[in-house]
C-alpha cells in the first residue's frame, strides 16, 4: 500500500505543475492509486463526475507523468471509490446508541447474581481445568446443542462458579433476549418450598420451565430432599425437550451423590461430566497474576510463585493476596519478597477460610468420635445432639455459611434448628459450659480415617 501511495504522490507532484490549482485541489486531491498490475494503473476517485473530467481532460497529463515514474507505457483505469484515510482506532465508532462497552455493562447487570467480571477472557487455564474450560465455552457458543447437561465437579475454589457465570455472561451477551437463570440448589429448594407452602406451583413452573439456559450451582445440596428432586426432575425433562441448556456444578461426580434419586443421577450424567482438579502450581501463579492485575497492583512472577506455594485453591490465593496488599499499603506500597514471606508465615494459621464444610464436619466427628452419617441422621440421641450443634456453630463462625446451607449439610435440617444450635453453643461458650477446645476443632488434622 505504502508503495502505491509513494508512487501516486510522485505522479501527482508532476501533474500539479501542469494543471491549474483549482483543478488540482478539486479533482486530484482525493484520488488514490489502488493498484498497478503490469502496465495498468487503477485509480480511485470519489465520484463519477470527477472520473469523467479526469478521463476527458487530464488523461494525457496523468499518463505522461505515470509513464515517467513507472518507466512503462501505462494505461489508466478509473474506479469510483472513496478511500478514507482517517482510520478510527479499533472498532469504528458509531456513537453512544451503539456503544457496546456501555451496553455490555448494563446488560450483565441485568443478570441477577452473575458477576460481570467472571468471563472466559479473564480465566486462567492450565492442564487441570482445560477440559472444563473448553466444554464450558463450547456450551456457551452453542447452548442446548453441544453437551446437555454440562456437569462440572471439583473441590472448592477451583473455578466452578467462575466457569458457570462465564457461560451465563457469554450467552447473555450474544443474545440478551435469551432467558437465563443462574441459581443455587439452595435457592431452587426455597422456591419449591415456597411454592408448596403457598400452594401455587404454577408460577414456579413457569419461572423454571420457560428458560433458555438454567445454571444450578452446588447441586449436591439437593441430597435428601425428595420433593425438590422430583420438581428438578420434571424441570430438567421439560427444558431438555425444549432444547434449553442446563449446566450444573457439584463437589463430586453424579455417581457419587448420595440420597439423590437414581433417575435424576442418570439425567445428570446424560450429557458431559467434566472435573476440575485443584489448580496446579503454574495455574495458581497465573491466577495470582490475574487477580493482582484486577486489583491494580503489580506483582512480579517470583512473588506470585512464592504465594502460589502456600495456598491450594483460588480463594486462599486471593486471601493471601489481599493480606499482602494491605500490608504493602501500610508500608511504602512496594510488594517485596520479604514482605510476602513475612505475611505468609503469619497467615499460616488462617488458611481455614478455604476449608471445605465436609472437612470441618469430618473434624467434628473425629473430635467427638461419631460418624458423619450419624451427625446427619434424624436421630436425637444426647451423644449426637452436642456434636451436631458444635458443627452448626463452627460451620457458621468459621465458614460463614447461611443457616439454610448448614441445614442442608447436616441432613436437611430446618434453618431455625440451626439458628437455635448456633445460639446455644455460643451461649455455652460465654458461660464456659463447654470447653474452648471445640474452637480448635477446625485446626485438627484429620486424615481419611473417618468413614462417610
Amino acid at each position, binding site marked *: 500500500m505504502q508503495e502505491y501511495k509513494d508512487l501516486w504522490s510522485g505522479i501527482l507532484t508532476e501533474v500539479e505543475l501542469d494543471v491549474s490549482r483549482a483543478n488540482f485541489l478539486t479533482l486530484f486531491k482525493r484520488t488514490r492509486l489502488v493498484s498497478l498490475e503490469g502496465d495498468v494503473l487503477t485509480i480511485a476517485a470519489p465520484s*463519477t463526475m470527477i472520473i*469523467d473530467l479526469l478521463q476527458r481532460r487530464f488523461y494525457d497529463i496523468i499518463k505522461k507523468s505515470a509513464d515517467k515514474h513507472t518507466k512503462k507505457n501505462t494505461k489508466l483505469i478509473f474506479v469510483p471509490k472513496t478511500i478514507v484515510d482517517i482510520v478510527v482506532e479499533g472498532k469504528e465508532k458509531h456513537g*453512544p*446508541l*451503539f456503544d457496546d462497552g456501555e451496553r455490555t455493562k448494563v446488560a450483565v447487570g441485568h443478570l441477577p447474581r452473575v458477576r460481570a467480571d467472571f468471563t472466559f477472557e479473564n480465566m486462567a487455564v492450565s492442564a487441570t481445568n482445560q477440559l472444563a474450560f473448553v466444554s464450558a465455552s463450547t456450551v456457551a457458543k452453542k447452548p442446548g446443542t453441544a453437551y446437555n447437561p454440562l456437569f462440572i465437579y471439583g473441590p472448592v475454589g477451583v473455578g466452578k462458579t467462575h466457569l458457570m457465570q462465564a457461560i451465563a455472561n457469554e450467552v447473555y451477551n450474544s443474545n440478551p433476549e435469551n432467558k437465563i437463570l443462574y441459581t443455587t440448589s439452595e435457592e431452587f429448594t426455597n422456591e419449591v418450598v415456597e411454592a408448596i407452602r403457598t400452594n401455587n406451583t404454577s408460577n414456579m413452573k413457569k419461572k423454571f420451565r420457560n428458560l433458555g439456559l438454567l445454571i444450578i450451582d452446588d447441586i449436591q445440596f439437593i441430597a435428601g430432599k425428595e420433593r425438590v428432586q422430583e420438581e428438578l426432575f420434571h424441570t430438567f425433562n421439560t427444558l431438555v425437550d425444549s432444547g434449553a441448556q442446563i449446566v450444573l456444578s457439584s463437589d463430586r461426580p453424579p455417581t457419587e451423590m448420595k440420597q439423590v434419586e437414581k433417575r435424576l443421577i442418570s439425567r445428570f450424567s446424560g450429557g458431559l461430566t467434566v472435573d476440575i482438579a485443584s489448580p496446579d502450581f503454574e495455574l495458581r501463579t497465573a491466577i495470582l497474576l490475574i487477580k493482582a492485575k484486577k486489583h491494580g497492583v503489580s506483582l512480579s512472577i517470583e512473588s506470585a510463585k512464592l504465594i502460589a506455594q502456600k495456598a491450594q485453591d483460588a480463594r486462599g490465593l486471593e486471601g493471601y493476596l489481599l493480606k499482602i496488599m494491605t500490608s504493602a499499603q501500610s508500608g511504602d506500597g512496594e510488594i517485596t519478597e520479604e514482605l510476602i514471606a513475612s505475611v505468609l508465615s503469619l497467615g499460616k494459621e488462617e488458611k481455614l477460610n478455604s476449608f471445605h464444610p465436609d472437612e470441618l464436619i469430618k473434624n467434628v466427628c473425629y473430635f467427638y468420635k461419631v460418624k458423619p452419617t450419624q451427625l446427619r441422621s434424624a436421630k436425637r440421641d444426647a451423644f449426637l445432639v452436642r456434636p451436631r450443634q458444635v458443627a452448626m456453630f463452627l460451620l457458621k463462625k468459621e465458614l460463614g455459611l447461611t443457616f439454610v446451607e448448614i441445614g442442608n449439610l447436616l441432613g436437611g435440617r430446618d434453618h431455625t434448628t440451626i439458628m437455635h444450635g448456633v445460639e446455644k453453643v455460643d451461649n455455652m461458650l460465654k458461660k464456659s459450659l463447654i470447653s474452648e477446645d471445640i474452637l480448635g476443632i477446625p485446626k485438627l488434622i484429620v486424615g481419611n480415617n473417618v468413614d462417610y
Partner: protein
Amino acid sequence: MKITFLSDNLQKKLSFLNHAVSSHGQLPILSNFLLEVKKGKLTISATDLEIGISSSIPVNVDQEGSTTVPAKNFSDLLSNVGNQKVTLFLEGNTLKLTGEKIKASFQTTPPEEFPNLYEERGEGLINIKKSLVKDFITRVVFAAAQDSSRPALSGVLLDKEKNEVLLVATDGYRLSMQKNVFKTKEELAKPLVIPSRLIRELLSINEESDDLSVFVSEKSNQILFSQGETTLVGRLIEGEYPEYQKIIPSDFNTKTEVNREDLLNAIRICTVFARETSNVIKFTIEKDKMIISANSPSVGEDMVEISAKTIGEENEMALNAKYALDLLSSLDKEDLVFEMTGPLNPGVFKIKEDNSFLHLIMPIRVQG
C-alpha cells in the same frame, strides 16, 4: 443555439437545481449551469462533483446547441423577471437573453469543461409514486449524521425485511426507522446506504409528475433518481452500517400516549432555558400527565405539563431538546406513543396504532 420559452416553466426548477451548484467554487466550471438544447428541450444540469441534478423543460427550438453560464447570475435574473416570453441566443462566447422589455448577456464557458453527470442509469430498482413514500422519507432522513467522519452514518440505509423495504437513519445519538416503505421482490440484492443529502434533494425536487424511478449501478456505485423531467444522481456510500436491529428495545417499563402538537409546543417553551444548558430538557412521566422541564441555574427554569395516558411505571429521562424537536417537526401524525425502560436507556417514540415507525433517542446522563 437559439430557443424561446415561457420563463415561468423554468423558474420553479431553478431552486432545486441551485442546490447542486458548488458553493466552494474552487473550480469555476462548477458554479455554472450546463445548458443543452436538443429535440425541443432545454436541459439544465448542475453538479458539485458529489451530486448532480439535471432537469428539462420543453422549449421552442430554432437552433440546437450547448453552453455553460454562471448559475447564480442566470437564476437570480430569471427568477425576477416574472412570467414572460424569453429568448436565449448564443453568439460566440456570449449568451444573449431577451425578454419583452429586458436585455441581458452572459459570459459563457465552453460546455466541454463541464463533467458528465453519469454514464449509464444502471438497473431499475423500483418505480413508485413519490407522494406515497415522501412522508416516510421525511420521518427518517433528518436522523442521519451531518458530518462525514463516519461515512456510513451520513447515509440513509435502505434494507429489506421479508418483502418490504425499510429505511433507517442514525447519527449514533438517535435513530429513525420506517418499515413497509414499499414492496419489493428480488430487486434489492443487498442493503444500500444512500447519502442523506441525496435523499433531501430528492424531496426538494418539484415536478408535476409523481412517478419516481430509482436506478442503481453496482459497477460505478451509483444511485440515480428520475422524476418526470428531472434526474438526480449521486454515489452510494461504501462501509458497514451498524447493526441497528440490536439496539431496538423489545420491551418497556413505561408507555405513555401524548399529542404531537402539545409536546412540540411544550418543548419549544422549554428550549428558552434549555438553550443555556446544551439543550437538556427533562421528561417526567406520571399517571395522566407528562411534565417537560428545563432548568438553567444562571438563567431560570420552566416546566410545562401536557396530558398523557400512561401505563406502567412512572419514569423520567433527560434528553437533547433538539433531537425531540427534529423528530416532532418531521412527523405527520398527531397521536404518538413514548416508551422507555429507564432513565439511561434509549427512549422510543412511535406512532399510535402504527408499528411501522419508530424513533430512538439516547438519553443524557444528568448529575444528581
